[in-house]
């Protein structure tokens, strides 16, 4: 496994540790995130996870950041090489979905599957939360059944409703708030993925297992 470190401006670094969306890359990302969460290194202002990558932002001015990059960063990455990758899911969260999304017919057409089969394949397996990103509490979930892998919509929708369950590439996700979006919307959930007023504002955490339960429109 190749690790690479690149500066991202004078006070941040992007560390890459996997370009494929494999279970191993995910396990490594979860291990790195857990390490940073439980043992925040001195001088680190903030970290952000990507797929097989992590962004590290240093505190202080450019000079202090340069020092951090020389003295702290290399040892930290060295330690990450030997992290324990054994990851058992923290929690399993069941999320009810009404499969009546505006792109369901289109997904059905593009995949050549009946709508019922699309639903069965989407709800028929457990997903792991790879990371939260794009919008507060938006979970990138994987891995989707290969038959359902589709590129993003050519033209993003200007507005996707809050609670929309959507797919793109090897992933599925849930829009916590209404926003523009380029994924194919196949359903909706009443689950609140992000509630800034709640003691814990985020319903899901990286590493959680998610199970979608198909329900009728009258059940939500």
């Amino acid at each position, binding site marked *: 496994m190749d690790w690479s470190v*690149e*500066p*991202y*401006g*004078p006070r*941040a670094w*992007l560390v*890459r540790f996997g*370009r494929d*969306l494999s279970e191993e890359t995910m396990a490594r990302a979860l291990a790195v*995130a857990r390490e940073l969460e439980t043992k925040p290194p001195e001088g680190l*202002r*903030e*970290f*952000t*996870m*990507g*797929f*097989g*990558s*992590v*962004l590290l*932002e240093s505190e202080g001015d450019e000079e202090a950041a340069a020092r951090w990059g020389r003295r702290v960063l290399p040892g930290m990455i060295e330690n990450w090489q030997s992290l324990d990758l054994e990851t058992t899911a923290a929690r399993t969260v069941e999320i009810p979905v009404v499969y009546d999304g505006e792109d369901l017919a289109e997904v059905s057409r593009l995949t050549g599957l009946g709508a019922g089969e699309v639903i069965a394949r989407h709800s028929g397996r457990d997903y792991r939360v790879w*990371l*939260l*990103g*794009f*919008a*507060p*509490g*938006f979970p*990138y979930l994987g891995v989707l059944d290969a038959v359902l892998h589709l590129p993003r919509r050519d033209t993003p929708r200007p507005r996707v409703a*809050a609670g929309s369950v959507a797919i793109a590439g090897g992933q599925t996700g849930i829009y*916590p*708030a*209404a*926003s*523009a979006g380029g994924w194919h919307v196949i359903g909706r959930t009443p689950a609140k993925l*992000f509630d*800034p*007023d709640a003691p814990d*504002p*985020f319903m899901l955490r990286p590493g959680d297992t998610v199970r979608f339960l198909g329900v009728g429109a009258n059940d939500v």
Partner: protein
Amino acid sequence: MFEFLEVISPGCGATWQDAGRPGWKRFGVPPGGWMDAQAAGEANRLAGNAEEAVVVELALQGARFRVRREGWLAVAGAAMGPAPGVVRKVAHGEELDFTRHEAGVYAYLAVPGGWSAPVILGSASVSERSGLGRALAGGDVLSCHHDPARPGWRPAGDAPCAATYPRKIQVRAWPGPQWTEFSIAARGAFFGTPWTVSSQLDRMGVRLTGAVIPPPPATMPSEPVLAGSVQITGGGQPVVTMRDGPTVGGYPKIVWLDDEACRRVAQVPPGGTVEFLPPDE
């Protein structure tokens, strides 16, 4: 609480903003905060506030307010009607029209003693797309903590506005994470083009037009994105990621702009031009 201004119309956009919300990016929460820290800071200085006090941020033009009670109001940043760089007493019943766009994009309103705005995850900065508060709308009443007519300090009067908001700017760029993956020709075209700021601009990003920059052939998995990153979309168009931009994304980032360059780009109105200067080698 003192009811000071009533929103008649928010125009192109009116939101509460402060320094933003650091520390939440790994949950997908963008940094947020004022698009032009310098102008927001000036509004607060004119009002006699701490620089980090929450302000009202107005975008482009069109916002209108009615004054509910006499008080001091500081305006800074873009020129849309009421003169920026000025703190003055506004009268009960007076109407403030930010409807004549002259320069810049973002203007800031501050009141002595500070506005009373809801705080979410440690910040008053609003990002509707992120589910963080809501933008101001007609009928909203903006209140402040102290009597705006009796700020407890003697206003210095009009302070000449030092900042200017040119329609053509040049900014220095830092190499972005995919810098070396762009061809020499693509980088040359990026720096050789005077980019026009399109009308597709908001707190998430500013789309530029003027040339097509061929993106690197390899697609990449989504990775973290810093505000200030210039992403090249699939169609070869640059988008400057702004304060409310997504925390991760799959477009390659050719360059990164620091906060000062980013705030200057934010203040270039549609039709204005931005030229990027290559990183110092």
